[in-house]
């Protein structure tokens, strides 16, 4: 009995100390791990290393931030890993849209993005619909009209069936009644090569990837998948402006934490990335790569992810993809 009391008292005392130190501003001690789902050189990995380098230079970071690659199953290995780190305050991760889709279609996922703690959104990624420069299609409508006249004959190169380019294709096909083929390639390089070689007719491409090929007269941009025109392409209409009344399918990257991350830690990282969004090197990097600097706080990001997953579930089910959750 006595021992139990001592333990209870000590734990109350300890809890008290923690409460006091939490009131004083919480800061991570030691190294912070930043989990990404791609291997070194992959999209999110390169993005993560670049922004951390920029933030280090901007003197925003107060600790050492180390990128940790947890690859496998799209994002599934990374999300599972975070699930095991529940409550940890020194692990954060860069989520991307594939984290939202993967948990919808992969039955093996032990944790999903909804179990994780939203911290802050960083960017929205615009995209362009592009064709070869000598293509007969001058507008996206030219393309959808031709696809409608020859169902299944025209081809789009893209990623997996659950990737955003496949989702936007489904949305557009539904909107116009046109039908064209979707050819999946695992890497962006193969997708562009297929377009440049004339093996497919159209592609949804990142602005930074397309910019140089357009400037060199190899590709032509038809429309942009964004809410508003991006600075690098002032003359290219958005989907809405081009006459397609479809919901914008956003693609986002941001910071999430393991499940049940303590509130004071969330607060700290939220503030850190709010500061980051205004820092010089970071904003310049986003401008150079034509990413849309879109900070959202923890609460807004949580709601954004929920809504996004709901929309995706509807679209994927409509496209005949088996959804498991």
């Amino acid at each position, binding site marked *: 009995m006595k021992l139990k009391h001592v333990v209870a008292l000590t734990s109350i005392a300890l809890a008290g100390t923690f409460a006091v130190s939490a009131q004083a501003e919480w800061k991570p001690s030691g190294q912070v791990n930043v989990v990404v789902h791609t*291997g*070194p*050189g*992959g999209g999110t*990995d*390169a993005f993560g*290393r*670049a922004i*951390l*380098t920029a933030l280090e*230079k901007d003197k925003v970071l107060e600790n050492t931030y180390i990128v*940790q*690659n*947890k*690859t*496998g*199953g*799209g994002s*599934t*290995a990374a999300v*599972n*890993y975070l699930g095991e780190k529940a409550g940890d305050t020194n692990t954060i991760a860069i989520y991307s849209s594939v984290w939202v889709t993967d948990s919808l*279609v*992969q*039955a*093996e*996922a*032990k944790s999903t993005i909804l179990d994780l703690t939203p911290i802050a959104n960083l960017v929205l990624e615009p995209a362009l619909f592009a064709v070869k420069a000598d293509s007969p299609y001058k507008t996206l409508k030219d393309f959808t009209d031709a696809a409608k006249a020859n169902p*299944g*004959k025209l*081809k789009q190169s893209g990623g*997996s*069936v659950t990737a955003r380019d496949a989702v936007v294709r489904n949305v557009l096909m539904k909107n116009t009644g046109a039908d064209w*083929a*979707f*050819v*999946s*390639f*695992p*890497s*962006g*390089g*193969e997708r*562009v*090569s*297929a377009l*440049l*070689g*004339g*093996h497919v007719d159209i592609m949804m491409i990142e602005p*930074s*990837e397309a*910019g*140089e*090929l357009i*400037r*060199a007269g*190899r590709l032509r941009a038809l429309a942009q998948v964004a809410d508003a025109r991006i600075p690098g392409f002032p003359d290219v209409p958005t989907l809405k402006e081009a006459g397609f009344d479809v919901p914008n399918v956003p693609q986002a990257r941001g910071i999430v934490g393991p499940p049940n991350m303590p509130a004071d830690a969330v607060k700290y990282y939220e503030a850190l990335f709010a500061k980051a969004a205004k820092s010089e090197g970071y904003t310049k990097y986003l401008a*150079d790569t034509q990413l849309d600097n879109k900070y959202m706080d923890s609460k807004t990001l949580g709601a954004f992810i929920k809504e996004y997953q709901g929309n995706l579930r509807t679209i994927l089910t409509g496209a005949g993809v*088996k959804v498991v959750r």
Partner: protein
Amino acid sequence: MLDGVYGLIHGFSVALQPSVLLWCVVGCFLGTIIGILPGLGPAATIAILLPLTFNMDPTGGIIMLAGIYYGAKYGGSTTSILLNMPGEASSVASCIDGYQMARKGRAGAALGIAAIASFVAGTFGIVILTLLAPPLAEFALRFSSPEFFALMVVGLSLVVLLAGDSKLKSLLSLIVGLWLTSIGTDLFTGQSRFTFGYSELVGGVEFMVIAVGVYAIAEVMSSVAAGEKTQLLPVPRGLRNYLPSREELKACRFAFVNGSIVGFFIGMLPGAASSVSSFVAYGIEKAVSKRKELFGKGAPEGLAAPEGANNADSSGAMLPLLTFGIPAGGSTAIMLSALILWGFRPGPLLIVESPDLFWGLVASMYIGNVVLLIMNLPLVPLFAQILRIPLGLLFPMILGVSIVGAYAVSGNLFDVTSLAFFGVLGYVMVLLGFPTAPLILGFVLGDSMERALRQSLSMSGGDPMILIDRPIAATFLVIALLILLSPLVGRLRRARSDVVTAP
């Protein structure tokens, strides 16, 4: 072509500046080291070092990163030859004959041949890159999924030639490889296949885990099981005995050409892994050889072909990167993002707008290959001393490095378990006389082949004629057919000579 020569002269004036030259040497040195360590690949190293390069002059920076990339191909063969443990995915094919050479006491010669083949093919690749970059880049664009599929069929048909004594056992081994490669998420439907509910399998099985398991771990197990019978591998004395003999180099003549061309050609196609080019070069080498029976038993040309191919492959991969801004794989992808971070605009106009960078990089690759040859040849006797380590120490070392390597690939403990599984699988295969090369080849080619087939069919709306309608694809399919028929031709010829010599 003349533009290339003028450009190159300008390039050398950039690359020979002392500070730039220093970064080239640093890159080559780092590449050699990480090439030796399995698990730590060039892509990971380049990504980790990226932040350091931001305070450097960009030309020096990219030259160092490129040095790491092609330098790793040199280092990767060292442990393949000495320990049957591939240091990189691209040097798995080098295990087959390289390790057998070492077992026969020709470890030094094997290391020497690997370095020379790498130098010859690497340099060949850069010469082609210098002279023919723009037209070749246009040609590569004509290559799409149907052509790729046909190329993979050529690769797979080479299994017939890789087969050991039993065609049936080779076929079974191949089928297991094809099955292993189908584990994971299907790109085309988003559904997972053969994951048995393990989330770790959703991304498929890591190639390096299979290769290190089936080769290195299985080899350690067989040696331990053999017990006292195993002795230290013979290590020659005297520097002269470390270098390849005249006969060995002569046997490699065709392999140098084969590795150079096959490696460069496959390297410039985005999406083809460098393990593909080394295996295809190995297969071709065996296909045309007059002494097929020596392959797998320590034929020097069986080492020279894949080693050459994986180096020419890295020059080939620079072609789409520098001419279109298209990365051919992980390492070139991170070099591309480095160029963007530095403010360059990789794309068709790079050569015109940033000639210092373009030609400086190309020139540095000539220098880098010389540096690597100089760095690697004198190290040969030193590396060969590894074989003097008592087996009681060497085996735990190999196991340790393999386990750390497997963990480093993905940061998942599951991969360490898989490594043990594939080690046992490889050991059982050796015990039962199943060749392991067809399994690895099936794993390497199966995935790309399935993808290319399904891409082709989505392009044609399901019409299989797309595979034979296109001239390049058709040519490859004919070559595959010839390869498949070649053993028959041999048998016919033998039958005829039997008839002739019969009394």
